[in-house]
């Protein structure tokens, strides 16, 4: 089957509606959240309509069906990222996943490999989303560990020239993004992983912007932990994934405690169930897990490689068209080498908020502001940018609409 974004759009009911007085919806904000195909909406609705019960308990048919759907969803997600099933943990969001690992490390007692103390170091990068920065700032503050980071070059790439002095014998964890939500940069992981493992540190990969857009196999990558959100990969909101290598999950203490995550409980203490349940306290987000499973199956049927190739094509097209617009400055790599379809830019004197408002009046949805990466914006010398982010349902027509919108905005605000 050849890749046909127009046919794909028909699977997404939102494209049937119009925007701002009858305009065609040009959705270029998938970096913030993706739209949902009908199969995902159906999976979530069907769970509530036909199978709703609390998983892992209840001696009745509905509980059995709910458990089968929930654990089946875990299997689907595991297959999608090349993981073992017991390594896949459902959280409410990628943000929660990153807080899970950082708080769990903070809970690690002396002697545990995840224990942090003054003298230890946490390494991040300047291009992190706040969700993969602030939890580590907080962990450093709680434990006395130091926080250091890889800098970003003016071209929007990680500066690895000082890798041996950024990751040192003191480093216990290196947390970084796979693909920048602002720059679109896809980070080279091999050297960073090799250096981290050389000093005995673990790698936590924020894959929110990569898993939806390119083939990600956790075993091939060689990372230790990986997180992503469901709603950016065509799934529902309220579900995220935390993946870890099984031997590491066995040693990592829990974050949230309560029902479902225990082995035995007395009035004075408790022991933990093995992963994944150790990290899934409470009745989980079952309907959302079902929706996420439908999403990754939908993508797998199309082929993630095809999705990626389509996005590369659109990104290349858009980058070329943008380079022809005077006063437009792309903030991030200007070619498609190791780059995804998140394109941030500034445009002359027109503030991103005003440009975004104008584009909205044309039915074009973009993101404006600092994109939850304030330190990166400062580093790149821009208070805010406009971001167009692409996905499988975008077309060349969408790209042309954006370019026309940018040019029209210049006329509008130049009056």
């Amino acid at each position: 089957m050849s890749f046909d974004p127009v046919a794909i759009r028909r699977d997404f009911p939102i494209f049937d509606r119009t925007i701002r007085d009858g305009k065609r919806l040009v959705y270029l904000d998938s970096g913030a959240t993706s739209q949902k195909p009908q199969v995902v909406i159906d999976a979530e609705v069907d769970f509530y309509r036909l199978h709703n019960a609390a998983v892992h308990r209840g001696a009745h048919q509905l509980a059995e069906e709910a458990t089968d759907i929930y654990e089946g969803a875990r299997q689907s997600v595991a297959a999608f990222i090349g993981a073992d099933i017991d390594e896949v943990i459902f959280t409410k969001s990628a943000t929660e996943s990153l807080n899970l690992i950082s708080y769990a490390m903070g809970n690690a007692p002396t002697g545990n490999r995840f224990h942090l103390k003054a003298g230890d170091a946490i390494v991040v990068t300047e291009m992190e989303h706040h969700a993969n920065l602030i939890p580590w700032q907080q962990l450093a503050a709680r434990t006395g560990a130091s926080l250091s980071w890889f800098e970003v070059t003016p071209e929007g790439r990680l500066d690895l020239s000082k890798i041996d002095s950024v990751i040192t014998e003191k480093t216990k964890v290196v947390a970084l993004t796979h693909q920048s939500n602002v720059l679109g940069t896809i980070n080279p992981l091999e050297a960073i992983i090799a250096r981290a493992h050389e000093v005995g540190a673990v790698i936590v990969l924020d894959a929110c912007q990569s898993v939806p857009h390119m083939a990600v196999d956790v075993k091939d990558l060689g990372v230790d932990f990986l997180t992503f959100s469901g709603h950016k990969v065509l799934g529902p909101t309220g579900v995220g994934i935390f993946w870890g290598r099984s031997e590491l999950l066995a040693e990592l203490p829990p974050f949230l405690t309560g029902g479902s995550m225990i082995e035995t409980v007395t009035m004075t203490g408790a022991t933990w169930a093995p992963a994944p349940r150790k990290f899934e306290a409470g009745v989980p987000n079952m309907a959302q897990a079902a929706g996420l499973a439908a999403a990754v199956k939908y993508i797998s049927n199309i082929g993630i490689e095809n999705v990626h190739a389509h996005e590369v094509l659109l990104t290349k097209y858009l980058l070329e068209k943008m380079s022809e617009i005077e006063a437009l400055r792309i903030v991030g790599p200007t070619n498609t080498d190791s780059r995804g379809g998140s394109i941030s830019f500034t445009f002359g004197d027109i503030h991103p908020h005003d440009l975004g408002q104008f584009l909205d009046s044309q039915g074009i949805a973009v993101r404006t502001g600092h994109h939850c990466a304030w330190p990166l914006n400062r580093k790149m010398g821009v208070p805010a940018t406009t971001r167009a982010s692409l996905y499988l349902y975008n077309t060349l027509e969408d790209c042309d609409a954006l370019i026309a919108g940018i040019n029209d905005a210049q006329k509008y605000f130049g009056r």
Partner: protein
Amino acid sequence: MQLDNLYQEVILDHYKNPQNKELASDNDAQVHHVNPSCGDEVTLGVKLDGEKIASINWDGVGCSISQASTSIMTDLLIGKTLTEASEISEKFLHLMQSKGSEEGDADALEDAVALAGVSKYPARIKCALLGWMAFKDASVQAHSAKEN
């Protein structure tokens, strides 16, 4: 087009030629406010002459709405008493919360009624209020500094 209600000529004029946009060094109070959702920033100082507002001066970065609204606000409130300024500010806040149902009191708000269209765009109301909230904060601080 509907967008013209938002971007009225007077707003774009103030954006291009902002008034009182130069920080003074002898303010009675100076504050720094940000809009965390978009990164807009304003630093604003107030100087009082008794109950009267002798100066409002500022610097900042942000969209046309936040910059124009701050500029218009300074033009409007300089020379007023703190009580008058507070009444005008309340009227402006009310206009911003009107969801497009009101045109604003042109006698009290003067050029600031040009911002009425903002109230139809919930995401932009914070932009329009950034400078006004900074003024409120700074004027309270300036007033209590004078009293002590």
